[in-house]
């Protein structure tokens, strides 16, 4: 099957996908190790990574189980779900990028996570967006699951992943994904406000809720078009036939 050669931006999308995927996968080792330290067995750690497949939710679930045990099961499930609500928002955004087709959308459902959404939406060309989504999603899925298994088997041999600065790397990676979006004034305003809201609410609310409160900021700014310009196009068209001309 002959495919047209990839443009520079499409190659760049695939490259970021690999970079983000590998960095995230490395973090999976800490999930596996922490899961077994929280009392799960190797299979339970692996099922979480295979089926739940959403880092924040997975860490929340094992965190609650580690401190509260099985009695805290309801809270554990609720925390995981709260942290997973943002994936619904990501799906709304990805829906226009991925396009129609039941099986394709079904496969994309499981890969709907922070990283794949961020890489996809950081691209401007539609085909580059799709390449960014699939490469990131698949590399993260494979890497995260393999590393969960490795971490669960190796357990305490690795020690605290914080010693390697991997927690800071995760924040730096998300910053890199946010950076290219900060060109429009409206996006800058939303990002600053959302960051403030999430930080200020962290001590007050259950984990997961501060990030969702930040989503409310975006909804207010988006609906009222605060800081937006009247002539702003909302976004590169979802699936246009011709490529955008970059200045």
């Amino acid at each position, binding site marked *: 099957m002959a495919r047209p050669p990839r443009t520079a931006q499409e190659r760049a999308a695939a490259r970021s996908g690999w970079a983000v995927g590998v960095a995230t996968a490395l973090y999976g080792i800490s999930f596996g190790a922490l899961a077994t330290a929280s009392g799960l067995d190797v299979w339970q750690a692996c099922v979480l990574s295979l089926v739940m497949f959403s880092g924040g939710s997975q860490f929340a679930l094992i965190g609650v189980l580690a401190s509260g045990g099985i009695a805290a099961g309801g809270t554990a499930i609720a925390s995981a779900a709260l942290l997973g609500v943002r994936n619904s928002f990501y799906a709304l955004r990805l*829906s226009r990028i991925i396009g129609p087709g039941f099986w394709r959308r079904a496969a994309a459902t499981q890969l709907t996570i922070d990283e794949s959404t961020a890489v996809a939406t950081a691209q401007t060309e539609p085909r580059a967006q799709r390449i960014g989504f699939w490469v990131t999603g698949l590399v993260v899925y494979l890497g995260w699951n393999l590393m969960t298994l490795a971490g669960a088997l190796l357990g305490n041999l690795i020690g605290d992943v914080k*010693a390697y600065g991997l927690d800071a790397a995760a924040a730096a990676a998300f910053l890199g994904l946010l950076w290219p979006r900060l060109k429009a004034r409206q996006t800058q305003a939303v990002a600053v406000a959302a960051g403030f809201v999430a930080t200020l609410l962290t001590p007050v609310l259950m984990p997961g809720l501060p990030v969702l409160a930040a989503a409310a900021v975006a909804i207010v700014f988006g609906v009222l078009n605060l800081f937006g310009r009247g002539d702003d196009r909302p976004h590169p068209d979802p699936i246009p036939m011709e490529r955008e001309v970059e200045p």
Partner: protein
Amino acid sequence: MTTWNIILLGSIAVLALKAVGWLVPPKALDHPVVARTSDLLTAALLAALICVQTFGSGQSLHLDARLPAVAVAAGLYALRVPFIVVVPAAAVVAALIRLLT
């Protein structure tokens, strides 16, 4: 509830939340207000995640090696250093600070 029940119920809930967004018909998303808002949502969620991962520790705020690491990362992004260099650099900054303090 057994541990397996918790794991399976939690996993199904998170997967179902992903599916909810995909079940909204794409045409409903064509309205400019909806398109603009769903775009801003991604930026807002990313900004919130960055802050929570930089300052948060469970349900409290902590200033530690993560902040200088993220600040270095921001500086490097401003200098247009590629992602693949910046992320390990941030990890090294945090790891060094923790090693030395």
